[in-house]
């Protein structure tokens, strides 16, 4: 007997928190706002845990809330669907979300818009949970759009800053471009399957064979859905908003742009696995985009000097890994990496926030150094996270990344090779970050009264870097713990079996030749560990033992180095090809042409015309008696003529 889980509480509780803080927060004390925000997000997490425990054996679980659209044969309702996939996402979102809420209490304490921040953060949770729990594409799309809105609000949180406002706009607009593809995919689904409900659509697809010709409807839908995922999850070519999104406060970067929102694309692709599995061309597109993005973003990451930008490109790269996994059919591996990535990337961002807080708002790594003596706890957690992301066993990142590389190898060794190279580069730039920030000598300026740096949230007026308060450190420690043990759920394919009811045991078809492949698997595991260690050693070489080398290498590479530092000029390319013509066209055609000439001038000319006509007509009322007499006589003559004409007709 499936219990009634009241799943609707999970999204609605944060919504209530957002409403309370949004409407009442301005007049409330910081403590009150914190309590409200923490209570509602914590309650959502607790309820999610309770649901997990109660329904663990009876998944999948549907909960129907209300009618929404009933139009002809098409219907979409407010209904929630809980299966293993959404359970994983649910726990990750609420758990990591709750931890970041706790962290934000400390990080944002001195900010003037304190209540607004928590209102937006809770609002984000509401939308994200709707996205994850939805049982049809339309409700998911509402969550999809809603998280885009929350992202815009939070990126542009310090909206008085031009760069932050522009970054928020950029994120929203680029997202919308992806959403356009997503929408057309949805329309195609409606057209062919007359429903957007997951269960119904996948039931209809089930008997179809894979489309070998590569030109069928499912391929089109798959590619269009991938376009949407590219926008939301920052893959090529729509990744450009994610580095700019670092303008937002660091907890926002941690929650939205690392752990949860950007993974929505991966979740959506995984949820639509039924479509992708029957459209090999679309699947290949996913894999290629993911792989290329992983490598591309990693190469940009090695030359960045802003600590958050390095992490941003790292996120893009790791998302590429997840899409690579989905693209080779290893959906559960992708979700596994999503989970571990949430832990260590969330930790990396929060620790970076702690570092930034310690040095009073400075984000340039060249002005940091030697911080491990000042902020040891932050250092320890960041070290754990770096080892995890580099893929060194037995931490979480190793298990998930290796699973992806293994599955990729079985489809095409090119994917594996690029993934391996990317792992090497990942390890390199992550350790570079670690060494530049925590080792060596402190290059920073003594922190002044109000904290330097444009991302200052109100630095403390101390003379040297200091550790963050407990409220910020505890989430770091918890996430570090999960970065260590989180990967162990994947040992022995346990995670894959857990998700098998969702993805089918199609991946188990690769059990053919298991003994031989076991040996290969172990060999590949060793190779990837070696690659990670090599990356770490190279970073140690360049940044610790011979610190003058990087400049020499950069000078030797010349133009290529410049291109990498400037992110391959992609933003400039987009600006010239897309943005500028659009803005110019809009100014000249739409604004001056249509708005001014057609709309405004029509009204102005109508008014002018009325004035001219009345100017002429007013001469009738001249004040001159005889002209009045003349008009009367003329009118009378006209009337008489008319009557005669009438009479003559008879």
């Amino acid at each position, binding site marked *: 007997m499936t219990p009634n889980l009241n799943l609707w509480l999970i999204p609605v509780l944060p919504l209530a928190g957002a409403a309370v803080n949004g409407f009442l927060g301005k007049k409330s004390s910081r403590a009150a706002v914190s309590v409200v925000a923490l209570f509602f997000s914590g309650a959502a997490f607790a309820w999610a845990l309770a649901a997990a425990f109660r329904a663990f054996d009876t998944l999948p679980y549907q909960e129907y809330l209300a009618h929404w659209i009933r139009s002809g044969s098409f219907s979409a309702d407010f209904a929630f669907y809980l299966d293993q996939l959404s359970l994983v996402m649910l726990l990750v979102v609420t758990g990591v979300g709750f931890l970041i809420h706790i962290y934000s209490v400390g990080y944002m304490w001195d900010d003037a818009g304190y209540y607004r921040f928590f209102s937006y953060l809770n609002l984000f949770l509401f939308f994200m949970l709707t996205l994850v729990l939805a049982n049809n594409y339309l409700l998911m799309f509402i969550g999809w759009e809603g998280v885009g809105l929350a992202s815009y609000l939070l990126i542009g949180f310090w909206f008085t800053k031009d760069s932050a406002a522009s970054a928020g706009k950029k994120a929203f607009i680029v997202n919308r471009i992806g959403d356009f593809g997503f929408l057309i995919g949805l329309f195609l689904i409606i057209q062919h399957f007359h429903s957007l409900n997951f269960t119904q659509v996948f039931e209809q697809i089930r008997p179809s064979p894979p489309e070998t010709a590569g030109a069928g409807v499912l391929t089109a839908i798959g590619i269009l859905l991938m376009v949407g995922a590219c926008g939301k999850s920052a893959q090529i070519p729509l990744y450009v908003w994610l580095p700019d999104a670092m303008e937002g406060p660091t907890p926002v970067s941690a929650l939205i742009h690392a752990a949860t929102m950007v993974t929505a694309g991966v979740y959506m692709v995984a949820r639509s696995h039924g479509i992708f599995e029957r459209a090999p061309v679309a699947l290949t597109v996913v894999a290629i985009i993911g792989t290329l993005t992983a490598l591309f973003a990693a190469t940009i990451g090695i030359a960045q000097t802003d600590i958050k930008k390095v992490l941003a490109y790292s996120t893009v790269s790791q998302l590429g890994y997840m899409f690579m996994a989905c693209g080779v059919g290893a959906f559960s591996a992708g979700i596994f990496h999503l989970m571990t990535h949430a832990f260590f990337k969330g930790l990396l961002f929060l620790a970076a926030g702690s570092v930034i807080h310690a040095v009073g708002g400075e984000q340039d790594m060249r002005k940091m150094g030697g911080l491990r003596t000042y902020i040891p706890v932050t250092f320890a957690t960041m070290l754990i996270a770096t080892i995890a992301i580099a893929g060194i066993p037995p931490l979480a990142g190793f298990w998930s990344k290796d699973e992806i590389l293994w599955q990729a190898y079985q489809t095409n060794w090119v994917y594996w090779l690029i993934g391996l190279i990317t792992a090497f580069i990942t390890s390199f730039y992550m350790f570079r970050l670690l060494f530049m920030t925590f080792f060596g000598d402190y290059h920073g300026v003594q922190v002044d009264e109000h904290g330097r740096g444009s991302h200052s949230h109100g630095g403390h007026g101390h003379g040297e870097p200091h550790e963050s308060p407990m409220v910020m450190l505890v989430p770091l420690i918890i996430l570090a713990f999960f970065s260590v043990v989180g990967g162990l759920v994947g040992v022995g394919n346990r995670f894959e079996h857990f998700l098998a009811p969702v993805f089918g045991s199609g991946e188990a078809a690769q059990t053919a030749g298991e003994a031989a492949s076991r040996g290969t698997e172990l060999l590949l595991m060793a190779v990837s560990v070696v690659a990670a260690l090599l990356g770490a050693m190279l970073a140690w070489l360049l940044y610790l033992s011979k610190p003058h080398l990087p400049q020499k290498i950069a000078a030797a590479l010349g133009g290529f180095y410049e291109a990498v530092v400037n992110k391959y000029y992609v933003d400039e390319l987009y600006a010239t090809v897309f943005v500028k013509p659009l803005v110019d066209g809009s100014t000249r055609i739409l604004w001056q042409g249509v708005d001014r000439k057609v709309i405004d001038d029509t009204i102005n000319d109508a008014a002018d015309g009325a004035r001219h006509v009345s100017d002429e007509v007013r001469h009738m*009322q*001249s*004040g001159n*008696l*005889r002209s009045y*007499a003349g008009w009367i*006589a003329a009118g*009378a003559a006209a009337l008489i003529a008319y009557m005669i004409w009438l009479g003559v007709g008879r």
Partner: protein
Amino acid sequence: MVPLSYYLVLSGILFACGVAGFLIKRNIITIFMSIELMLNGVNLSFVAFAAHWHALAGQVFVFFVMVVAAAEAAVGLAIIIAVYRTRETLNVDQVNLLKL
């Protein structure tokens, strides 16, 4: 025997003379008299039709027209006197305070 149309032509010409005077003349009183001329022309037309159709109502109507003309003449001349008091002139072109 005089055809009806002769009477009507005469009436029409009298009316036209009245309108012409109404438009041409500058003296207010003369304009007023042109109006009376118009009314007379119309009266002739009424009586002619009454005789033609053997309807006495035409002649009764003439009676009423004359009564109204008398009333109108009285009031109109009073107004002319009032205007003369303020404007000191009987020239209709100089009663033009409402001019643009």
